[in-house]
């Protein structure tokens, strides 16, 4: 007889996520996985690799490139695509590129609306994807706590929080009409700590921006941002100072706050996270616009 011990919490979460990914591959005709290059995306990619081994991941990865990501993120993305041999689709909003959207000039709201939300919608429409796998977690933000794992979107990619499908056991309703889609969140039930612990245990590669290092940073709209290229206005760049910092989330460099830190290893990052007193999203400028803003963005089609 085999030892009937229960699986550890991470192994239970891992099995649940793999179940979800396989369900997507089995029930949808044209799924895609969002790849944002951050730690959650890295975990998702790792789970997908496991779910379909020894075969290849049976769906492409989609990166919506806002053109303002950290340089290192793009290098990391292309390297991982090669190492793991996955199909990578990259999309940038041509209208935004034409308008030369610049978060320093147009502000975070316009930049996010055009390069991220609109760019995402374009990429989804162009790909005709019926299932879009994302790395959102329920512990990140209050409106996410109520979202289903298989979250229905109408043909305008909109979420209706008051009219969600009941979701019971691990039985997911994958039915949609033509033009509609489902956003699927396989790591819904993971917390930030779970993600870090799993990365540590499974030794999953992540961009070095998560680790503390001397970097040029400058105060901007109440947050410390890194000078990643010379598109940053000169008067800001002039004020930049070298500080030992790291990032708790990765996004567009002008919108992503750095924190002062000495954490150079995964255990040190986890230690810092457990002892810290502010939540992960604090470093993201986009949530602060207004209370409940994430909820509004989600209704409009932002992930």
């Amino acid at each position, binding site marked *: 007889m*085999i030892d*009937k011990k*229960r*699986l*550890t*919490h*991470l*192994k*239970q979460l*891992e*099995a*649940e996520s*793999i*179940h979800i990914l*396989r*369900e997507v591959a*089995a029930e949808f005709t044209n799924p895609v996985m969002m790849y944002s290059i951050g730690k959650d995306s890295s975990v998702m990619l*790792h789970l997908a*690799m*496991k*779910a379909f*081994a*020894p*075969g*290849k991941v049976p769906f492409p990865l989609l990166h919506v490139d806002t053109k303002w990501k950290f340089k290192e993120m793009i290098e990391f993305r292309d390297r991982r695509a090669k190492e*793991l041999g996955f199909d990578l689709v990259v999309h940038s909003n041509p209208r935004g590129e034409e308008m030369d959207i610049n978060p320093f000039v147009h502000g975070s709201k316009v930049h996010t609306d055009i390069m991220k939300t609109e760019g995402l919608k374009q990429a989804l429409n162009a790909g005709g994807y019926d299932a879009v796998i994302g790395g959102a977690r*329920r512990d990140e933000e*209050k*409106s996410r*706590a*109520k979202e289903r794992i298989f979250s229905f979107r109408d043909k305008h990619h909109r979420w209706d*929080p008051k009219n969600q*499908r*009941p*979701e*019971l*056991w*691990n*039985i997911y*309703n994958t*039915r949609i*009409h033509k033009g509609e889609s489902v956003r699927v969140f396989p790591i*819904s*039930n993971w*917390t930030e700590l*779970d993600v870090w*612990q799993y990365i540590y*245990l499974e030794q999953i590669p992540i961009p070095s921006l998560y680790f503390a290092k001397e970097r040029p940073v400058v105060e901007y709209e109440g947050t410390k941002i890194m000078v990643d290229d010379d598109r940053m206005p000169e008067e800001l760049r002039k004020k930049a100072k070298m500080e030992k910092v790291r990032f708790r989330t990765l996004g567009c460099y002008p919108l992503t706050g750095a924190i002062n830190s000495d954490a150079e290893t995964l*255990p*040190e990052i*986890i*230690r810092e996270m457990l*002892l810290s*007193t*502010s*939540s992960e999203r*604090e470093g993201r400028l986009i949530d602060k616009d207004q*209370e*409940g803003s994430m*909820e509004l963005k989600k209704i409009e089609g932002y992930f």
Partner: protein
Amino acid sequence: MNSKEKIDVDIEAYLKEHENKDMLRFLTCGSVDDGKSTLIGRMLYDSKMIFEDQLAAAESESRKYGTTGEKIDMALLVDGLQSEREQGITIDVAYRFFATEKRKYIIADTPGHEQYTRNMVTGASTADVAIILIDARKGILTQTRRHSFIVNLLGIEHVIVAINKMDLVDFDQEVFEKIRGEYDKLASELGIPHVYYIPMSALEGDNVVERSERTPWYEGPALLELLDTMDISREETPENFRLPVQYVNRPHLNFRGFCGTIASGSVKVGDEITVLPSGKTTRVKGIINAGDVTEANREPYAEEAYAPMAVTLMTEDEIDISRGDMLVHTHNVPRVSNQLKVMVVWMDESPMEVGREYDFKRATTVISGHIDRINYRVDVNTYERMEVDHLELNDIASCRLTLTGPIAADAYKQNRATGGFIIIDRITNNTVGAGMIVDVASREGERFEPTPREYTEAEKALNEYIRIHFPEWGCKPC
């Protein structure tokens, strides 16, 4: 050394300890008035899952929407959507997370009002434990009966009765004992196997994380202590191996694997297995536990695997196996039928019609069928049975289900992972209901079984009079 010091001094030792944590999912039942959101806010706050910026946000919201005056409204830490905050109620199922040294917890936070029965059923479907809140001043209410019924219906075996607001009854032991006595009766009426009672004040924090000095007469654990230590493993005898086939993995000609999550039991290489519903048999040639796969080794073979692992199984023979099939041990095969006795919870605004075609999804099997008879509807508040010809939103009923093909049918009471199903409307694609297999339907089927009724002496006399003087009415004795 407390955990904060441990993290500070030796993070690697701390991580080592936490690699082996267990996971527990629980459901909280109660309304805002019972202090449900306050209790959850308190657990998150006291286990340090609330960060300062979230607390600051809750403070600013407390001033706007709060109901607690000067104090931070704990409920606002957990009530999610803007529209709900304005109404001051929780209208959907929200999932919250926190962890202790021993376990990671997932809370399904659902509203308690009758119009939200479907949300509670949803939250209960994945929970191992239910916490039922009772206001010490009010005792057992209609909603307590409703919550207990749903919890039991969804197969939750452990119920913690949190007798809350003890501060408002001066922590009086008699109040606690009276409610405990009454609930004991209710629990045995329903057949809930494990019930625990805790006197509590969620608002003041008594017996939530630490035992309260204000209840010296209470010798049991505080809520978190209980959650940390309770044994939630289900006893399974005999052990039933079930693997619903989810996905067929065929990366190249030499590899054909059947992927799925083991629903129950365990399996070893060499085991003889049967494919249902076809009944074909073969042996297990190889097992890959997806959890063991690494970037460097994509084919790590295991000797055995058990629930709830996500696995890939290879078979000795090239027999036809596809998504929706169920793999089981040949020496332990469940009954296979297309006619089932089920309990249905209706979840849609438009009523369920007898005879109408719906799609049913059970594990990975999707099959069409119809309800051909409603045996009876149960009133969730009084447990009375009623005869009805259709089901409305939130109705719960015993029905006979006829599917267009046979499926392997485990009773939900025996196997939660293979006994539950959802009902999908074929036109709107909505999830319109959920169901639990009770049994394979017998050929003659069940009839409406009214709740046995006590007749008065006058009724009995009238019945006798009619039977004697008007035999042609065909009246039965009562």
